[in-house]
């Protein structure tokens, strides 16, 4: 750890000591039992993975441990701290650091200031001249470098960061604060392999220093790469706690969702020879995309792989009218189009599923029904008047089709992260687009539902539509796509046939620093 140990040298727990004890934890929201009697211990110097389907209660448990929410019943004790943790301030004193699924970043602060946010905590007196100095220091850059944000300027506004960068930025606080428990709630959901290595390093350092790390993720390979034990939640109850070395991904999956996962079949190849491409992009510039050309044929699922910042989202946004292209042409079925706004793109049946759920994904004051119907509403109305019966019945169907844990009247913002993502996917696919760009579509979605989403994507393509999937998971693209493009520095640098490539090929191509 780099810094400033503030809370004295109070005896750090030894590896193997109990770090926290949760007894009979219940958390009930109106109409939902998010947690229903969980007993769990964590030990110092271990990585405890928490697995479970979407809405199983993982984030809820993490929030209770971090003191952000108060349990309906039961008690959490943190070692070295006398009282049960009751609120965020107490948890902070007890040394609990939480990384939220939706990272809490102050948009109007610079990157550097966000690193040192903890210095604004309660109890610290008003020290003149104390605030500005740190945020641009050598130390700040070092800290940022450790979480893979070395290329950022410290005085850049946090507002301009992408979701992946936001996650890593909030993670940088782990480097500057002193804590006994660190909670990573899907911190890896929108990060690429590159950042995962930074996280691995961080976790390793923390663990050696005796920190208890709680790791929540839907990526089982990461869980197995990192954890010592795996706690499995299902419907708010603790199903089992397993030693990682003594179990297999299949067993965990079975515990999580009640049955084993079927392997996802790679899609049958589509015939593209001699056909007219559905979408033809030529020399596209915009955002970080710098001269991108590619075709998508009807019936095709094309993957777009690359590191964070390689320009994938810029491509996705620009070809769907979310952002205006600086230059380049886009043809749809051979006809050149100008997509200057999402509305225009929608008129041409071209849509973009955002990777930034927090900002652009759903309307926070809308319930699931309203969010799902937002795009297609004009189709469900006559003369501008909404056909409510149609809306209601179709929303119900969508909810079951996409396995959303929540009803039509539930506020989308109160859903678990994965379920929010399902609502957003449903919203877009319901508009029956000809060409759809899915940016990190399975972000935060559990393995069970993931298979379901894959099938939905395939069924879209099967109707002679085009799909472009942007993902940071090489494995996902390999099993999902007909073709994979790899981007680097704003350009497409390679194309792979999934049946002839493996994860390493993709990662290597994405990382290589020369052509």
């Amino acid at each position, binding site marked *: 750890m780099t810094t400033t140990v503030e809370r004295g040298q109070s005896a750090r727990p030894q590896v193997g000591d109990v770090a926290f004890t949760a007894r009979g934890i219940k958390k009930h929201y*109106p*109409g*939902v039992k998010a947690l229903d009697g969980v007993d769990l211990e964590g030990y110092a110097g271990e990585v405890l993975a928490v697995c479970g*389907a979407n*809405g199983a209660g993982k984030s809820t448990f993490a929030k209770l441990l971090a003191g952000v*929410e*108060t349990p*309906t019943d039961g008690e959490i004790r943190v070692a070295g701290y006398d009282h049960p943790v*009751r*609120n*965020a301030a107490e948890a902070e004193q007890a040394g609990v650091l939480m990384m939220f699924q939706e990272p809490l970043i102050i948009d109007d602060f610079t990157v550097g200031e966000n690193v040192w946010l903890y210095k604004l905590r309660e109890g610290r007196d008003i020290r003149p001249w104390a605030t500005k100095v740190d945020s641009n220091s050598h130390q700040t850059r070092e800290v940022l470098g450790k979480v893979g944000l070395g290329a950022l300027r410290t005085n850049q506004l946090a507002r301009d960061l992408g979701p992946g960068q936001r996650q890593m930025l909030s993670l940088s606080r782990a480097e500057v604060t002193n804590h006994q428990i660190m909670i990573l709630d899907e911190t890896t959901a929108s990060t690429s392999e590159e950042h995962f290595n930074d996280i691995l390093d961080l976790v390793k350092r923390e663990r050696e220093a005796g920190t208890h790390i709680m790791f929540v993720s839907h990526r089982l390979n990461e869980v197995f790469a990192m954890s010592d034990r795996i706690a499995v939640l299902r*419907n708010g109850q603790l199903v089992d706690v397993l030693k990682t070395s003594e179990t297999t991904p299949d067993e965990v999956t079975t515990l999580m*969702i*009640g*049955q084993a*996962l*079927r392997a996802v079949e790679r899609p049958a190849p589509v015939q593209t020879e001699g056909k007219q491409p559905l979408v033809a992009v030529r020399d596209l510039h915009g955002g970080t995309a710098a001269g991108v050309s590619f075709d998508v044929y009807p019936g095709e699922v094309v993957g777009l792989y690359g590191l964070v910042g390689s320009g994938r989202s810029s491509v996705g946004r620009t070809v769907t009218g*979310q952002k205006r292209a600086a230059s380049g042409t886009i043809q749809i079925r051979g006809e050149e189009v100008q997509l200057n*706004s*999402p*509305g225009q*793109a*929608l008129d041409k049946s071209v*849509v973009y599923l955002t990777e930034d759920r927090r*900002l*652009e994904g*759903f*309307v*926070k*004051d*809308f*319930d699931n029904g309203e969010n799902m*119907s*937002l*795009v297609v*509403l004009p189709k469900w*109305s006559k003369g*501008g*008047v*909404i056909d*409510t019966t149609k809306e209601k019945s179709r929303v119900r169907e969508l*909810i*079951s*089709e996409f*396995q*959303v*844990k*929540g*009803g*039509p*009247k*539930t*506020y989308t913002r109160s859903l678990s992260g994965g379920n929010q993502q399902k609502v957003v996917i449903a*919203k877009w696919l319901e508009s029956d687009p000809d060409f759809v760009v899915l940016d990190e579509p399975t972000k935060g979605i559990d393995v*069970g*539902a993931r*298979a*379901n989403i894959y099938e*939905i994507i395939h*069924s879209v393509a099967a109707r002679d539509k085009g799909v472009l999937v942007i993902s940071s998971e090489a494995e996902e693209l390999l099993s999902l796509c007909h073709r994979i493009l790899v981007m680097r520095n704003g350009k497409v640098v390679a194309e792979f046939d999934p049946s002839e490539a493996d994860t390493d090929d993709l990662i290597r191509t994405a990382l290589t620093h020369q052509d």
Partner: protein
Amino acid sequence: MTATATAPAPSAQPEAQRSSPVVDWLKSQYALYILVALLLVATITRGSIFWGGTNLTNLLLQMSIIGVVVLGELIVVLTGGIDISVGSALGLAAVIAAGLFGGPSVFLGLVVAVIIGGIVGAVNGWLVAFRGLEPFIVTLGMLALARGLVYAYGNGIPINPEAAASYATFGQTTIIGIPVLAIIWLVMVALIAFLLYRTVWGRRVYAIGSNIDAARSSGIPVRTTLWSVYILAGLLVGLGGWMFLGRFASGTSTAGNLLELEAIAAVVIGGARLSGGFGKVFGAVVGTIIFAVIANLLSLLNVSTFLQDAFRGALILVAVTLATVQFSRKRRATAGK
């Protein structure tokens, strides 16, 4: 498509809804409690007069003009905007409707007033939606501009339309005991409720107010929708200006003065959020009634002019504080924030 049985059965899920609708609704209706409390006070102190036919008619008349303006303010606030020019715009609509061509007919006045209101709204809306300016500063400019035009139009002297007598007659006409002006208000309430709750446009207004980025990236025509909101608000204000003529039969230069504060207050006390995306027509109506009843009651109680403002202020503070006591206590208990 055939769901692939790996996940828990979806049919069990709708239970996970927000809490019972009735409780939820009651919780959010603290404006209603304030109103009930006020009516209780009115009944106890001046019951017979307050509930008398004359006073009820007066009350209805007193709230119908501001009521229409409040509706306009509501839709603007729903988008996350604010319109502080409503009072001046109402004055402008009233004065020009009274003075243009000499104000020969009530119907022509309606057309003129609504057009003037619509123009003011269109300018506000264009600057906000297409130029991306802060609504507060735009409508502040309009507040001064419109009021200035009112003064300039009549050199500060009231403008009496030729049809003053017809306006006066019209303004006090009742239909089955209910003043027409109040009926116009109620029709507008129904219209706005319909637009907001039952049309695509209404849904878009809420979406824009709640999360403008999500709205934009979902393909909603944000700018034109925003513009239409300000225009509609302007039309309502223009209508209010015409109703002003119906009620007072004269386009005074102070028409609508300081109305903006009361309109915003009614919207906010009715539960709408100033940052947008949340608020109900019902709440705005209750808010309108609250402020009308407060003013009426202070008059009926013959509270000294010197004390009226103090009473009004204290009443507002006590009411909003009391109304939230129980909820915030509950909130703290569960959330411990």
